[in-house]
């Protein structure tokens, strides 16, 4: 099973079209293995991207270098997945 330890989901705010284009540049960098949960669209609408642990520093440096604001929407994806799995197993155990 794929492991998402250390993966973070960042919420990027692109204020104008130029900033949206900057994020699209990021989207094209395949080696970063970015997973856009909400892709770049209208300026002002949030862009959510899951960033694997090895890419986090590079992505944050890129965003800061280009004046793109971001917040951390999910600190560690794996911890949410663990909670989800526990909840499902608990239910299955009860139903058995």
């Amino acid at each position: 099973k794929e492991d998402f330890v250390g993966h973070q989901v960042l919420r990027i705010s692109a204020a104008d079209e130029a900033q949206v284009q900057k994020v699209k540049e990021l989207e094209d960098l395949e080696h970063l293995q970015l997973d856009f949960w909400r892709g770049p669209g209208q300026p002002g609408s949030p862009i959510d991207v899951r960033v694997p642990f090895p890419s986090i520093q590079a992505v944050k440096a890129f965003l800061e270098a280009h004046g793109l604001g971001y917040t951390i929407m999910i600190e560690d994806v794996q911890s949410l997945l663990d909670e989800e799995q526990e909840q499902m197993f608990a239910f299955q155990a009860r139903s058995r």
Partner: protein
Amino acid sequence: STDTFNYATYHTLEEIYSFMDMLVAEHPQLVSKLQIGNTYEGRPIYVLKFSTGGNNRPAIWIDTGIHSREWVTQASGVWFAKKITQDYGQDFTLTAILDSMDIFLEIVTNPDGFAFTHSKNRMWRKTRSLTPGSSCVGVDPNRNWDAGFGMAGASSNPCTDTYRGKFANSEVEVKSIVDFVKSHGNIKAFISIHSYSQLLLYPYGYKAEPAPDRDELDQLAKSAVTALASLYGTKFKYGSIIKTIYQASGSTIDWTYSQGIKYSYTFELRDTGRYGFLLPASQIVPTAQETWLALRTIMEYTLNHPY
């Protein structure tokens, strides 16, 4: 039984398929299960049909889970199926709808992808088809429809999550619905349910030109999101795909609208960006309940505005 089924937890493909069989067994006069095809990996593709009789009645189509990782949508689909059986004969509006129309509900629209989210990769969104010449797997089933296919708003790179596929309807999961819609020929509303972002969207996604029925679709969307918000205050935005989020080509409802299905909508359910696709199971039932009010509004309008 479906009375003891736990709607407040996420389920596997096998559990959802056995739920369907239980529901059909409990309501043989109202519910039947159709198989509209097999997936790329050979899994059956099932659609529940809710009908009180007649032959080829005007119908409403609802699908969930075309993007496999959007687990709250399949879970809501299960809840909708149970709700329809509970409310027929009880709720005046739903009874009126089913006395004149059929409802088709495809709960797991991307079975291969859904199974993969349980077995290997919770974040998987696409189908699991192999692309000759590429080591990357899968096609975005919401970019593979024959409406603006190949235009801006989808990727030609098999390694991206919005890869459109080699040609329109290349994905059997899409083609099966296309064939079903064409052979039925009397579907009057088509609602495809995604998550997340809390949006109610109508055509077009591949072009900025307003749809001919834009005003009516906008008014109905407004009524639907108002009904949705009445339960828990959950706020949805609404509008055309291209104006509300971004350009998306080859999308489901652009094709259904091109087939003359006027009331074509896409929902993006909870949330707006705290958990995203990892919405806690505790929010399944409230999400399904509020969404049902919007669906009911669209279905009632469709019933009262035959075309």
